[in-house]
């Protein structure tokens, strides 16, 4: 089985926000919820770098560890998903996540959180693959159709890579060799430390 991972090549990302738009459109996520975002560091300064970030589908996922209702599960592909039928919107996964991935639609007054929403690696949720119920809660299930996440697929500079971790690493390694740069597997140390 593959071990799905995201990798954003900071030497290539041009902060076009195409991944953000692709994600929002594909999954029809509600207003105020952004499963993916692009962060630019040293903006406007020589050497600025942009990174597209969403749920990294960690090996030892902190969100899953702290969830009071134990609604997270990891698929055979290493994708971290959650069950919105169990989620109570307590916000603990947001406190634990290093990447700020969990999002909450504001459901009620006084800032009460609705059920958590996050990047699913385009793998839907516990509902039947491709069903309407799954789409409404979690968005499109591209993985079940044999397709990779749309954000990475649509990336104009192929900065964002999503797929089997070994293949992603191979592609990235080749790039690093070709441009004689140093590897910077952004976020992998945090997300996949437990793998190695």
């Amino acid at each position, binding site marked *: 089985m593959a071990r799905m991972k995201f990798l954003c090549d900071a030497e290539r990302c041009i902060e076009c*926000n195409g991944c*953000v738009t692709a994600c929002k459109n594909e999954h029809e996520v509600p207003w*105020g919820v*952004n499963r993916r*975002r*692009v*962060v*630019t*560091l*040293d*903006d406007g300064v020589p*050497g600025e*770098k942009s*990174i597209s*970030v969403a749920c990294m589908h960690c090996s030892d996922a*902190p969100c899953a*560890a*702290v*969830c*009071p*209702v*134990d*609604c997270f599960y990891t698929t055979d592909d290493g994708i971290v998903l959650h069950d919105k*039928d*169990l*989620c*109570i*919107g*307590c*916000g*603990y996964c*947001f*406190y*634990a*996540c*290093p*990447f*700020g991935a969990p*999002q*909450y639609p*504001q459901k009620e007054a*006084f*800032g*009460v*959180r609705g059920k958590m929403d996050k990047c699913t690696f385009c793998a839907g949720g516990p509902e039947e693959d491709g069903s309407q119920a799954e789409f409404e809660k979690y968005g499109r299930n591209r993985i079940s159709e044999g397709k990779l996440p749309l954000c990475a697929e649509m990336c104009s500079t192929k900065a964002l890579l999503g797929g089997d971790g070994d293949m992603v690493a191979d592609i990235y390694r080749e790039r690093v060799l070709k441009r004689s740069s*140093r590897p*910077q597997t*952004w*976020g992998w*140390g*945090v997300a996949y430390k437990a793998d190695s």
Partner: protein
Amino acid sequence: MAERANTTLNGRDPRRSRRILFWSLALLLLSTMALPMAGYLVTGVNSVEAAAQQDSSSNPRSEFWRAVRGSEPGVTQVKGQETNVLIQNGGQNWREIRQGPLTTYGAIALGVVILLIVIFQAVVGKAKLETRTGRTVTRWSMVDRILHWYVAILFIILAITGMATLYGREVLIPLMGKEGFAAFAAFAKPVHNYLSLFFTAGVTIMLLKWISQNIPNSSDIKWILTGGGYFDGVHRPAGFVNGGEKMWFWILFWGSVAMVGSGIFLLFPNLDWTRETMQLANIIHGISSLALIAGSIGHIYLGTIGNEGTLEGMITGEVDEAWAKQHHGLWLDEVKGESPSISGGAARPSPAAPEK
């Protein structure tokens, strides 16, 4: 010059050739000893150069990514809570504390309190009320009793719903199943959130109303030092509130400040508190709540089974004179001394000045 040349031509000057031999050997010896030392000179110069090079060109890219790991904010088009931060490290610490010491020591603290109560009840037993005089004195006014039970009932509901959030996954999910517990938790969360506001109002009024009668004095220190007579059976004289009750009051006071204070942060995520604030607030909320729950278990025991005749004071407002003499001798004296002077004869102590 000619003379010298002659002499050399005529024959070697033995003294001169010996001198040459001596100095040649000396030079040779010195060189063999000194030349290897040149290595030190080379490395010395090189290391100075290397250090200078390191200073001027510490890898800026690695510095850059180190800053990212250190939660350095950037710029993003996505609006929301700390969306410009790539990696927030506090969550890992929060996870370690919450899943580790907080849960473990919290459970141990509650277990120890219950165990101590069971041992105390088995070994010492309750403080019995040997005789009843049949005459009663008023201890708690209607307002005090309503305040007490209002706060008490809300506290118990909040404790159950709060502890379900902390321990439910380990304790209740195996019993109720994930769906069953999620249904309960989805109900418990808003109950905990909304009732907390009513609890905050109640506990604030109660603590402020009772604060003046809970200022510690010298008789309380004696009372506490002798263990309140719980172990030797001798009741030390105490005023309207004894040393132990004052201890509980101040535990409740500071515990509530921490618990309510941290709870306000957790209750309003829409006020854009940072994750760091929320993580800290959650830990403070957990520690203070567990301490108060442990304390309240002790309070419930001492107020019901532990001391005969105490509970009726908080239910009817009246306590037997024998109970008052046994537990709050100084207060009874005061009430009895004062009662004739109070018109209408209501033996209600002024809560503002129960002891001098």
